[in-house]
């Protein structure tokens, strides 16, 4: 390397440093907006609109405080009352999950906490939740997806649980669009990069491709955690005199786009300070934070705990205080900063990752700090829980924050955390909806001879939504922690909770935006039904539900109609199935220009299994076992994968939902697992019977001979997407018992063939035969070819 080039490089890196140089503290401190000043300058203009607040919302803040807010207070209210934190557009609808909650005694903690907690028996409690990180994953796919995983894992940790697995539900534009080539590899690497480094097995998920997600991919991450029922932790600041401790990563200027408006408005910035538009995750910091927290929980060293996610310190302080005594005092100067130039508004809004806040009794503080020191985790007492007077209590508590000796925040925390605005947004079923549902595509040309069916089958299994996912899932560690009993490509993921009893849990996440677009009410139920079915297929009993609702703008009445219908469908469905919603997440504003994505309801169902050794697997294993189709097939192609693949068509009605049938099918699958009469089971979903048979063969490389039922023509039998169906294989010796079980549970069963382990083909008798190798070539290379 030549010397001249060195000098050059030196120069340039120095100048880039200068870039980051920010204005000095003193300039800022001089014009600090204190409570006192706010009281004396009632007419000072404030940039509430830039922060996304309406006139009315701003006015309400002024009423609550009896003066104008300081800029720090405005920062807090603006983030706490944002759609993301306050659920102001969705709340009136989400209420149904509580109102229609089925009678169940499995819920230990319901909606509203960081995540719901479910009793799974033997003293074990499980907490799980799914959350979106859509927009950040579009801006910077790797970091966006990575920090999405990081955030949901902290939510689970906060409940007192050890996170034990993650799942990911992904949506991208068309497989061959350039946008997908940019976004998908980064998203997958980010989910893997973060989850693998935390040592959490990835046990399942889904990936769909559709035009509508171009420019607006969906990244929904789920985490599940486990604890003893007596180890549940809550986000509340109780006990006046207790310490408020901030621990984990230092606070930087991450994700404070909004705050810079405030800072510049209040502080007459010379130049716009550089604040990162992208949050970078540090999975190592999170891994030690997890171990540190678990050690803290085990020693019972906290009164309450809260993770710092969206809205960072604003959220953690107001929510902890709101759920506790209502009183808290914080000295913001004490917060450890990564960037010393941050002003209070920025510190309050920062979304820096890998941070937690705990409430710690004075007599436990030393031990708390010692555990943090052991794990090299920075921990700082930044405040105290205080008592409130009855008068303050009536107004919503009292949270005060100081900065450089001045009071800059003095608000009733409950008004920020619990009493945000609630909107009944206009709802209107769009006129286009009729056009969309009118034509079910029954006139679309179908293959009508064996050769045509064969070609269609190969085309289907090689289509983006049905092809092998292993190019993606092989980037995820599924073995770590040594308790993964089932993972992709099985119908559900399954985790052993306890090596001594073999008790375990199963999880599946599912959703289909096309179905939901055609009929949001049944679309939501179809997603629920599929996840429910997948869990039961593994042999586990479904217990509880989490959901992530990805929609366009709530200000669009058509979108709000989709949303309200979907929520109603989900709440009704959960009531009928008897499994409560424990929590979830709403992501609005998923749209490019004014075009919203397909309404995408992603449902996670959690189930329990008392002995994971009796899990039912997907692949055909026993030579000569009979193959049965469970359930009934109808001519249902509305929103189907076939219409999408063969004709790029979306229209008609989605498959009929029949939750009573789903329940009977589930009971059958659970009973059959209990009695260990099944060789394999695989549910039917997108792509119909053909897809499930191909997957069951390829999973174990087993051949099969199939005689299709003659109820409908072979095309319908192969590709229809009727619900409440599954393919199972049953060893001959168990066939009689299996038949009895089907009769008991009132589930239609049709013998459609048998497994032939020596055969190297999937043979549809009288129609066509395809070599397993040809199936595998078609199915398995699609994603690899695209992304390598």
């Amino acid at each position: 390397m030549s010397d001249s080039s060195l000098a050059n490089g030196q120069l340039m890196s120095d100048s880039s440093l200068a870039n980051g140089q920010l204005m000095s503290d003193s300039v800022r401190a001089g014009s600090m907006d204190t409570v006192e000043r706010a009281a004396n300058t009632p007419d000072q203009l404030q940039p509430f609109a830039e922060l996304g607040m309406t006139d009315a919302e701003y006015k309400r803040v002024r009423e609550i405080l009896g003066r104008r807010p300081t800029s720090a207070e405005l920062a807090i209210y603006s983030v706490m009352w944002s759609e993301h934190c306050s659920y102001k557009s969705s709340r009136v609808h989400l209420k149904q999950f509580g109102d229609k909650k089925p009678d169940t005694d499995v819920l230990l903690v319901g909606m509203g906490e960081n995540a719901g907690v479910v009793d799974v028996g033997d003293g074990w409690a499980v907490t799980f939740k799914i959350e979106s990180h859509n927009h950040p994953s579009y801006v910077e796919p790797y970091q966006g997806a990575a920090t999405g995983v990081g955030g949901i894992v902290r939510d689970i940790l906060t409940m007192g649980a050890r996170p034990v697995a993650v799942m990911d539900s992904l949506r991208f534009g068309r497989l061959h669009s350039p946008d997908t080539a940019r976004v998908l590899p980064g998203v997958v690497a980010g989910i893997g990069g973060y989850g693998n480094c935390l040592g959490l097995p990835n046990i399942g998920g889904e990936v769909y491709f559709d035009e509508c997600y171009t420019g607006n991919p969906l990244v929904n991450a789920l985490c599940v955690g486990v604890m003893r029922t007596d180890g549940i932790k809550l986000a509340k600041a109780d006990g006046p005199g207790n310490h408020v401790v901030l621990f984990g990563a230092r606070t930087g200027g991450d994700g404070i786009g909004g705050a810079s408006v405030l800072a510049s408005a209040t502080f007459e910035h010379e130049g716009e300070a550089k604040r990162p538009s992208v949050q970078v995750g540090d999975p190592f910091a999170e891994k030690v934070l997890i171990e540190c927290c678990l050690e803290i929980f085990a020693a019972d060293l906290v009164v309450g705990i809260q993770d710092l996610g969206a809205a960072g310190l604003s959220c953690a302080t107001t929510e902890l205080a709101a759920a506790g005594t209502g009183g808290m005092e914080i000295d913001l100067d004490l917060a450890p900063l990564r960037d010393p130039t941050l002003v209070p508004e920025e510190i309050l809004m920062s979304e820096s990752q890998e941070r937690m806040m705990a409430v710690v009794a004075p007599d436990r503080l030393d031990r708390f700090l010692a555990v943090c020191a052991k794990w090299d985790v920075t921990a700082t007492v930044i405040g105290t829980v205080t008592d409130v007077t009855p008068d303050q209590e009536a107004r919503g508590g009292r949270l005060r924050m100081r900065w450089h000796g001045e009071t800059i925040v003095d608000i009733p925390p409950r008004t920020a955390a619990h009493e945000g605005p609630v909107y009944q947004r206009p709802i209107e079923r769009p006129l286009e909806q009729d056009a969309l549902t009118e034509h079910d595509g029954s006139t679309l040309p179908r293959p009508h001879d064996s050769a045509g069916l064969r070609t269609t089958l190969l085309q289907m299994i090689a289509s983006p939504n049905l092809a092998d996912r292993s190019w993606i899932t092989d980037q995820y560690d599924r073995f770590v922690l040594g308790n993964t009993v089932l993972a992709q490509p099985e119908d559900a993921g399954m985790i052993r909770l306890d090596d001594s009893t073999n008790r375990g849990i199963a999880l599946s996440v599912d959703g289909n935006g096309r179905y939901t677009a055609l009929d949001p009410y049944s679309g939501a139920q179809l997603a629920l039904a599929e996840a429910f079915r997948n869990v039961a297929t593994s042999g586990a009993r479904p217990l509880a539900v989490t959901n992530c609702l990805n929609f366009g703008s709530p200000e669009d009445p058509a979108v709000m109609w989709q949303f309200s219908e979907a929520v109603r469908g989900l709440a009704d469905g959960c009531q009928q199935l008897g499994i409560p919603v424990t929590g979830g997440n709403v992501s609005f504003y998923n749209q490019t220009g004014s075009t919203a994505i397909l309404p995408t309801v992603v449902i996670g169902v959690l189930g329990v299994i008392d002995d994971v050794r009796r899990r039912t697997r997907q692949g055909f294993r026993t030579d000569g076992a009979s193959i049965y189709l469970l359930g009934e097939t109808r001519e249902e192609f509305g929103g189907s994968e076939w219409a999408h693949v063969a004709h790029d068509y979306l229209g008609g009605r989605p498959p009929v939902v029949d939750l009573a049938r789903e329940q009977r099918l589930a009971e059958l699958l659970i009973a059959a697992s209990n009695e260990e009469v099944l060789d394999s089971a695989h549910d039917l979903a997108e792509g119909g019977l053909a897809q499930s048979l191909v997957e069951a063969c390829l999973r174990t490389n087993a051949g099969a001979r199939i005689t299709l039922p003659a109820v409908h023509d072979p095309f319908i039998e192969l590709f229809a997407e009727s619900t409440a169906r599954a393919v199972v294989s049953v060893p001959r010796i168990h066939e009689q018992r299996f038949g009895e079980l089907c009769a008991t549970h009132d589930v239609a069963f049709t013998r459609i063939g048998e497994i032939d382990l020596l055969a190297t083909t999937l043979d549809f008798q009288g129609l066509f035969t395809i070599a397993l190798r040809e199936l595998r070539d078609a199915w398995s290379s699609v994603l690899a070819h695209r992304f390598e």
Partner: protein
Amino acid sequence: MRVGVVTFPGSLDDRDAARAVRAAGADAVALWHADPALHDVDAVVLPGGFSYGDYLRAGAIARFAPVMESVIGAAHDGLPVLGICNGFQVLCEAHLLPGALQRNAARRFVCTEQRLRIENAATAWTSEYTQGQEIVIPIKNMDGFYVAAERTLDELEAEGRVVARYLDGNPNGSYRDIAGVCNAAGNVVGLMPHPEHAIDELTGPGRDGLGFFLSRVGVAA
């Protein structure tokens, strides 16, 4: 038989390695990175994971942990040491084993069930296997691409120090399909795939991995 399992900040498969040690009938002893004491163990496992995040180079920082000073010293005196995945990387960084592990050739994390051939069944950790035995155990890594100078590779081959080799495809690009190597004395073994995740049918591809841990127990018996 006491087998120590080291936990570095960022270790992930430490609990699993301890479970495998117990499944083989030995006592698993937790060793902590900051504690130089080896607590009278008869062997040490450096488990998989991303010690210190592995941001710089896998294993580069863990090598300097206080416990490693003791491990390095004891290894020179013949203490059996098995480095799995990140442990292998640490052993290379610590110069207990030759070569280094780089980012996978495909530049992606890879997690799959991998077929291997045991090329040397005479090391401290492979005596339960037969020479040439084929086994299937999981592999999962980001930096598993084994590299070394040609001369070093030739030496390793000549001295029979390639302990295991990938079959049916090379998951990470490793030179000469190398999945594991040992030191000249055969007491220190580094292995990229994870035998601790193949100790039963329920949570892994089978029981093929147990042999690594049984090899130690067999010696004591």
